[in-house]
């Protein structure tokens, strides 16, 4: 890989590397010889697999980022957090209600929230994590679901929480409750499902299934993307 950009210094798990200044943390790590076997996924900021903690030179602040999104800075100390240990509770959505008691039954540790806001500070998606944890504690499922909409479950909030809460699991429960009981079914999805069931897309799918690799590549490369949609 050739790169003529200015080189800066980063520290990966304490080891010094010189990397081009315009790379993301993930690319910079690969540039410096690391290979990701865990802690990398979509590389587009959607999957939440590449959670990273870092400190910048001259600052005491511990910050969170997605390695595939954050551009390296000079003197960055980096550690990957590919996984956060957490138990996701099993529940039957039809049998639970959108209320505080449900949250407390499955994730009673939300009652330990200190409102310290450390989760919000750690969130690479700029979500008001503490606010949605607090909203779920008082049974405001709508607010909890809306505030947490951009969550990709990277786990940084859970790693940093002094009350040992796993906020992203709580918000997933809140969003599921919101979708099922408060927001209601979404009409355009129902319409599309009906079309699928009626076989409207059968011919298109068949075409794709039997197309050659070259045809597929050609179609992908010339596809239309409507950015306004």
């Amino acid at each position, binding site marked *: 890989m050739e790169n003529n950009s200015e080189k800066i210094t980063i520290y990966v798990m304490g080891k010094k590397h010189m990397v081009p200044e315009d790379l993301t943390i993930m690319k910079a790590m690969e540039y410096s010889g690391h290979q990701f076997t865990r802690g990398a996924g979509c590389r587009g900021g959607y999957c939440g697999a590449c959670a990273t903690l870092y400190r910048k030179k001259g600052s005491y602040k511990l910050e969170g980022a997605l390695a595939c999104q954050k551009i390296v800075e000079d003197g960055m100390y980096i550690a990957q957090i590919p996984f956060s240990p957490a138990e996701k509770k099993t529940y039957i959505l039809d049998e639970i209600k959108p209320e505080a*008691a449900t949250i407390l039954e499955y994730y009673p540790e939300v*009652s*330990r929230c200190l409102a310290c806001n450390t989760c919000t500070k750690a969130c690479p998606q700029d979500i008001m994590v503490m606010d949605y944890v607090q909203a779920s504690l*008082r049974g405001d499922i709508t607010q909890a679901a809306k505030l947490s909409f951009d969550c990709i479950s990277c786990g940084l909030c859970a790693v940093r929480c002094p009350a040992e809460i796993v906020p992203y699991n709580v918000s997933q429960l809140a969003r599921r409750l919101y979708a099922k009981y408060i927001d209601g079914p979404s009409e355009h999805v129902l319409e599309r499902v009906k079309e699928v069931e009626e076989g409207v897309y059968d011919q298109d799918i068949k075409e794709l299934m039997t197309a050659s690799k070259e045809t597929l590549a050609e179609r992908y490369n010339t596809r239309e993307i409507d950015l306004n949609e």
Partner: protein
Amino acid sequence: MSSFRSTSVLRLHPENKVFNERIKELSGEEIDLCFQCGACSSGCPMTQEMDYLPSKIIRMTQLGLDEALDSGTIWVCTTCFNCEVSCPRGIDVANVMESLRQLVLRKKYDRVSLDELTPEELRELPPIAIISNQRKLTG
């Protein structure tokens, strides 16, 4: 309870000064002012559940005896501040109880666990009960 019972002369031994000072620092209370009138104990609603009366706990801290940390008393105190309003020496006994609890809780000890509550209890108990229970009795 060995040193508490075997100490023939009740006074602050030099080796116990550290604990005495630590409690003063953490509670912010002038525990040495206590003259054992027992007003705190007489007003306390929880004494029947306690192994040592609150006034006795204060005496133990005056003498720097860290056996106070092993007492059941510190865990049944509800921080109702009855002792605080009764004390003629202006000591907030509830603060002393809190500092003793904190010293134990800060050593990775939890008195209660959310894991022990049934789903029914978690649904039924008001948030205020669960939150305060966790705040006071876990580290």
